[in-house]
């Protein structure tokens, strides 16, 4: 095992030790004597962060949140979160003289009367879409590489809550302009809430301050959108990042990478330049999209009115899975019993989506229980080396994608000239059966890739060069894999199914039986990493094998 210690220790020359040395030094000294900040620089200044493109996904999420805060603060200076009725008198001629809420009217003014206002609105909206998307992809990266394992289970939960809060921010923000589509979204929320047994009617009444739509909801969502939710998000992001510092970042398996080290670039200067630069790149890309592509053209929809709505209405992408789930419920799932209405068409959606969300949130604890693994894991799994986990992930993604696709069922039907019923029935099938198929395929693909890795380690790459031996035999030259590349292929955690053993009382409890069953399901099909003995044998068994070296 090679260990390399940090090359330089720039902290020795940390800020503010000397008083001489010009303005910078004396300013640094001034600050340090009042804040003790040199300690933080010493601790963090040369902290190592590993480099990989997939580690940027979380950064994209963080940076889009900063962009949302900046553009959102600008919007608050002009937006009026009031449902008081006004008559629109702005620059957009088609809506002139039409009564609408102050919220809608001020959003129109931001779009049509304030220079750069539309740009900021579009930056805000595009960044919000990117925010949720980046969190989702970041979560997929964490999941498929096993980065949620001990000691990071709690950080997974925090990140997951951030995902939910991001969607809540998205929905509350979507509802603020009080245009036709956002009002319709609220109508759906109202209908959903009313379907909840016992409390539904009252919850709806309290939320809207009386009957739907009332005149309170925009103001209330505004408080949530700009105060309560952002405050919680900022606090959780701080915790999330604090944990990253405490745990130190994970790294991919590679030569020299161990569970006891972290290899990469120091915060100062390389990481600061790259991460800082990346913030501007993300901001720049969002800005470019916002200057070129319209998002949420409320002027086309008009103010909210409970009566009109056009075909092809869709929520923002991240709410799609919930909306799609509602469309997939078959006709007639509602009954009356003991003088009360049970709306299964709503309850089943809430339950299934809720269970799905909770399962994702507690997954690290489930896997930890099955493996019983109490070790810290800082080297990531390549997805193929955890076949069952990867397959579960593929099943989950398929399930989510089916629900999500269902939110566009009508658009698919009209675009591809299909029947509405056919699209829905197909998506019902993919929602229920797709996950099983995805699980099977993903697991087999993982195992096949693992076998290929073994093959490469033991016998090298196929070089494509055919050589004729003196005896007339043709063989293909195998190029052996170098030891650095080989380490990537053989260094992974291996598990075997749990062997049931009676406890001290000579009994096997039901929980242990369940665990043993799950453990078998997880680890029955396993490809073990190549060992030294196997490697030696592989070379010993084929003395005639021709290699380049």
């Amino acid at each position, binding site marked *: 095992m090679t260990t390399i210690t940090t090359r330089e220790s720039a902290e020795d020359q940390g800020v503010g030790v000397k008083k001489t040395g010009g303005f910078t030094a004396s300013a640094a000294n001034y600050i340090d004597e009042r804040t003790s900040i040199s300690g933080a620089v010493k601790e963090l200044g040369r902290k190592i962060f590993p480099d990989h493109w997939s580690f940027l996904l979380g950064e994209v999420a963080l940076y889009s949140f900063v962009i949302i805060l900046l553009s959102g603060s600008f919007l608050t200076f002009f937006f009026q979160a009031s449902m008081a009725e006004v008559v629109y008198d702005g620059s957009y001629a088609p809506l002139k003289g039409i009564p609408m809420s102050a919220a809608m009217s001020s959003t129109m003014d931001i779009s049509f009367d304030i220079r750069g206002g539309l740009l900021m609105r579009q930056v805000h909206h595009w960044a919000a879409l990117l925010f949720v998307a980046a969190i989702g992809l970041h979560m997929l990266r964490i999941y498929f590489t096993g980065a949620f394992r001990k000691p990071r289970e709690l950080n997974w939960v925090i990140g997951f809550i951030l995902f939910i809060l991001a969607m809540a921010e998205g929905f509350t923000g979507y509802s603020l302009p009080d245009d036709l589509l956002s009002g319709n979204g609220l109508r759906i929320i109202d209908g959903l809430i009313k379907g909840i047994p016992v409390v539904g009617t009252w919850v709806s009444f*309290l939320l809207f301050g009386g009957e739907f739509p009332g005149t309170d909801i925009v103001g209330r969502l505004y408080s949530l959108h700009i105060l309560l939710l952002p405050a919680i998000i900022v606090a959780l992001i701080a915790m999330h990042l604090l944990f990253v510092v405490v745990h130190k970042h994970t790294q991919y398996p590679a030569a020299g990478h161990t569970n006891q080290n972290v290899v990469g670039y120091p915060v100062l200067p390389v990481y600061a330049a790259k991460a800082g630069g990346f913030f501007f790149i993300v901001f720049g890309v969002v800005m470019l999209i916002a200057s070129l592509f319209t998002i949420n053209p409320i002027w086309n929809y008009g103010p909210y009115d409970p009566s009109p709505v056009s075909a*092809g209405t869709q929520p923002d992408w991240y709410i799609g899975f919930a909306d799609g789930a509602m469309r997939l419920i078959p006709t007639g799932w509602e009954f009356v019993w003991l003088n009360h209405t049970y709306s299964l068409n709503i309850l089943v959606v809430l339950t299934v989506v809720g269970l799905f969300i909770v399962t994702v949130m507690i997954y690290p604890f489930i896997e930890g229980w099955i493996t019983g693994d109490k070790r810290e894991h800082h080297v990531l799994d390549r997805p193929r080396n955890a076949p069952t986990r990867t397959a579960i992930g593929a099943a989950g993604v398929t399930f989510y994608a089916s629900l999500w696709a269902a939110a566009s069922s009508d658009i698919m039907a009209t675009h591809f000239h299909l029947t509405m019923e056919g699209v829905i029935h197909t998506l019902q099938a993919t929602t229920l059966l797709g996950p099983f198929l995805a699980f099977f395929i993903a697991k087999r693909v993982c195992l096949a890739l693992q076998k290929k890795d073994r093959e490469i380690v033991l016998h090298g790459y196929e070089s494509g060069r055919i050589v004729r031996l003196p005896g007339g035999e043709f063989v293909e030259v195998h190029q052996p894999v170098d030891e650095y590349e080989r380490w990537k292929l053989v260094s992974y955690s291996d598990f075997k199914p749990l*062997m049931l053993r009676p406890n001290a009382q000579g009994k096997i409890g039901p929980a242990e039986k369940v665990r043993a069953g799950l453990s078998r399901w997880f680890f029955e099909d396993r490809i*073990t990493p190549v060992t030294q003995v196997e490697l030696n044998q592989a070379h010993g068994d084929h003395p005639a094998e021709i290699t380049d070296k």
Partner: protein
Amino acid sequence: MAKDDNGAEDVTAADSPGAQLATSAASTAVVTRDALANPGFPPHRPRITDLDHKEERKAERTVYTLFYVSIVGSVFAIAAYMAFPIVAEDPGSVRLNNLFIGLGLSLALLAIGIGAVHWGKALMSDHEGVDERHPVRGTEPVRARAVEIFQQANEESGFGRRTLIRNSLIGALVVFPLPAVVLFRGLGPMDQDPVALLNETMWKKGVRLTMDPSGTPIKAADVTLGSSFHVIPEGLSEMGHGRLEEKAKAAVLLIRMDPDDLIEAEDRKSWSYDGIVAYSKICTHVGCPVALYEQHTHHLLCPCHQSQFDVENHCKVIFGPAKRALPQLPIAVDAEGYLIAQSDFTEPVGPSFWERA
């Protein structure tokens, strides 16, 4: 430790000091004895900018040029702010304003970003550093001290000993947030019964059916065969306060069909007038307006979740997640030939709710 077939050993949380685990909780991880050894870091490969001074100069030029380009972008954005004003009632001017300010800012931001990243990648030292990791859990002495502190605090306060104080404090802390919960009752009006409100709409005997949104009364004779109208009750369009709340319940779709196409229940034969039928427009699923009428099939489609209703057959659900038929508004014609309601709806309109039976 049990040996398995591969000459590997079970590891019972080997590197965790608190490894006194019951057999049932044992880890199923396999630690192979003759695993391959980590070969250590591969040799460092210098970049072209490390080897070639000219390339290094070139990279440097690229970086500072990008930063200057960023300044140009910012200045351009400010100039665009002034050069492309928004002209009243000219949506094209908004587009130009948006486009050019945006492009300037994009340039300003992207150039900084790309420049900084290029600086980091091509010019800054690319020797990787290594930090050592330590177990996340505190060291034994630290943990022991933490336990000691809690014990000391417990002794000094008597938290564990003086159970009366402790339990009454816990009780007080549990109860004190309750008034705050009660305060939230004020989110909804005190003097209204939601169930009663959900059960009634503006429609009542003699109220004329009027056009949405103009409020013009509709004569039965003006409703041609096959046509459909979006309808609101008379007086709604002039309402100030509560207009949208009433409209969200009272919106109606009026359709005239060939009376022979209508399959009407005995007790509802009198609810239509000469093939003219009126149904609530509020979907019985979650309340979207069921606004799409397909004339040749006489089906209504809800654009939100694709529930379909059959107008020929009392708007019963034929597809989609809704369960209940759209409520029918009984209509008639008054002395002047205008369409009027015979009464309110005979059941609550819109989405289901718990108290609905």
